[in-house]
């Protein structure tokens, strides 16, 4: 018996080891096979994993529909860009700016949460949507009379992540490996994404996580259980916002340029789609959703050359096709897997309650 457990543990560590090695080698493998553009796409996917996990705290755990989530990404990005660019000629280190960005976005999260405490469902969705737009419009117009955000032109020449004179926007040679900027950022983003996954998993199984679940299921009953619903909802907004803020700071340093147009309603909806499609409330599902929805539109770019090759001409513009296929994928998903690709156990049970029941009871009796 104990032997079996030892073996299982051994296999588990082997699996983790293999996964770790794969994640370390991934950018180099992808670079050699699919090209550097795909390494960049993976970097972006890692950022979206952070964003989707942050939104999952608000929407998936606490059940508060937020349609303006990208605003926190924007706030985080601008918090970094303003203090690490020629805009004000301030060049602080990311070691200061990322925690600062996290703090600022947490405050913005509470600013959004406080007036919406009594709202649920559709009403909350509308207010959060408005919040997202307000932030974007502010960023667009805060260039007069005092130029803070540089308006629609955005902020350029944002400092890259750098430690002790080693900046990530340069190519380095390390032990025979050529580390291009996209490789360097990959490892930084990977670390942050893994940390986000870890925090999400810990939160899910904590007292706080259970309080959020109770609020999601029935707010009045949650209060009757002794849960401070007001504080817990604000905490969900603040924590979710923090994930977005850190991801925003990383995004600004990675791109070197940001403008209000990077943070539109469509981006909010995209992140929400990742959460819903992957499996609301389930960390693994959300990660899967983020990866798929970042990679899928990119993969569809190949449809153009393929048409050229097979049919002799491009009949359907790939960019039109992308949105079409994306919409189709959403409709099919909602029809055949309404709880997401990899749903949380709660939602899976609910949607297949009838079939699962005898099995559950048997499992318990046995």
């Amino acid at each position, binding site marked *: 018996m104990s032997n079996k457990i030892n073996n299982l543990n051994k296999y588990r560590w082997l699996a983790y080891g293999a996964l770790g090695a794969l994640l370390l080698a991934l950018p180099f493998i992808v670079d050699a096979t699919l090209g550097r553009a795909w390494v960049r796409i993976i970097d972006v996917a890692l950022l979206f994993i952070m964003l989707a996990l942050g939104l999952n705290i608000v929407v998936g755990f606490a059940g508060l529909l937020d349609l303006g989530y990208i605003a926190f990404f924007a706030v985080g990005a601008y918090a970094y860009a303003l203090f690490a660019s020629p805009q004000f000629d301030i060049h602080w280190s990311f070691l200061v700016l990322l925690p600062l960005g996290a703090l600022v976005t947490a405050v913005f999260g509470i600013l959004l949460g406080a007036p919406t405490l009594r709202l649920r469902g559709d009403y909350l969705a509308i207010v959060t949507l408005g919040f997202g737009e307000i932030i974007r419009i502010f960023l667009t117009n805060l260039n007069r009379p005092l130029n803070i955000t540089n308006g629609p032109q955005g902020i350029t020449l944002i400092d890259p992540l750098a430690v002790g004179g080693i900046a990530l926007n340069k190519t380095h040679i390390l032990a025979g490996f050529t580390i291009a900027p996209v490789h360097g950022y990959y490892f930084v983003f990977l670390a942050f994404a893994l940390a986000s996954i870890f925090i999400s998993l810990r939160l899910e199984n904590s007292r706080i996580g259970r309080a959020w*679940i109770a609020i999601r299921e029935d707010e*009045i*009953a949650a*209060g*009757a*259980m*002794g849960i401070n619903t007001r504080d817990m909802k604000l905490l969900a907004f603040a924590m979710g916002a923090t994930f977005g803020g850190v991801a925003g700071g990383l995004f600004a340093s990675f791109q070197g340029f940001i403008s209000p147009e990077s943070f539109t309603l469509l981006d909010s909806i995209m992140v929400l789609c990742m959460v819903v499609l992957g499996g609301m409330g389930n960390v693994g599902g959300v990660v899967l959703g983020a990866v798929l929805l970042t990679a899928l539109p990119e993969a569809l770019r190949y449809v153009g050359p393929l048409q050229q090759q097979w049919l002799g001409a491009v009949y359907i513009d790939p960019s039109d096709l992308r949105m079409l296929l994306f919409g189709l994928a959403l409709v099919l998903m909602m029809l055949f897997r309404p709880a997401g690709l990899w749903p949380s156990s709660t*939602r899976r049970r609910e949607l297949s*309650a009838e079939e699962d*029941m005898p099995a559950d009871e048997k499992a318990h009796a046995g």
Partner: protein
Amino acid sequence: MLEVRGLKVSYGGINAVKGIDLDVQDGELVTLIGCNGAGKTTTLKALSGLIKPSAGQVRYNGKDITAQPSHRLVRQGLALVPEGRGVFGRLTVDENLAMGAYSRRDRAGIAADRERILGWFPRLAERRAQLAGTLSGGEQQMLAIGRALMSRPALLLLDEPSMGLAPLMVHKIFEAIRAVAAEGVTLLLVEQNAKLALEICHRGYVMESGVIALADSARALLTNPQVRQAYLGE
């Protein structure tokens, strides 16, 4: 244990509760009966901090708890079984009970209480891995009561436990309530089913359009001609 003095509640200009006095002694079973719209549920909501009273005072164990939010009351031993049960439908019976113990941190005690409560409600014990939303109405009511007991309350406020249940189930629920009271939990029961409520309680208050019309021992109320005519259907 619970003293209510001059409690008034109004919703947007309508005075639902117009200044009532109410007492519950330690170890007592007290019921608040009355018709639909008499203000019973509103009174209970005001007591448990779900709505703010416009005037009056609520004292619990000598302490003023007027308008304290419900989550704080649980920690002081005052638990509410809300109207319409409010079980967590997508969580299992076990998870619902665990949620009831949210205000506690003694793991061993929580586990022991869970088994004890499942012992009182064998039907829940059979269905402990089942989703609460798939239980029958009566089973959900049992779960709501069991869940409230998980916080180890000294005073339990029950809002219409018989609502929408079949007569047989209503009897089972009342048996359970009696068993809970036998454990030393003080009860304030709001009910429309006046006969059953008065049969298991020590004292009763009759509420009519926002005021207490009668207050007496349950036995006296059961034989009171006025009550018999208006609430016992005779």
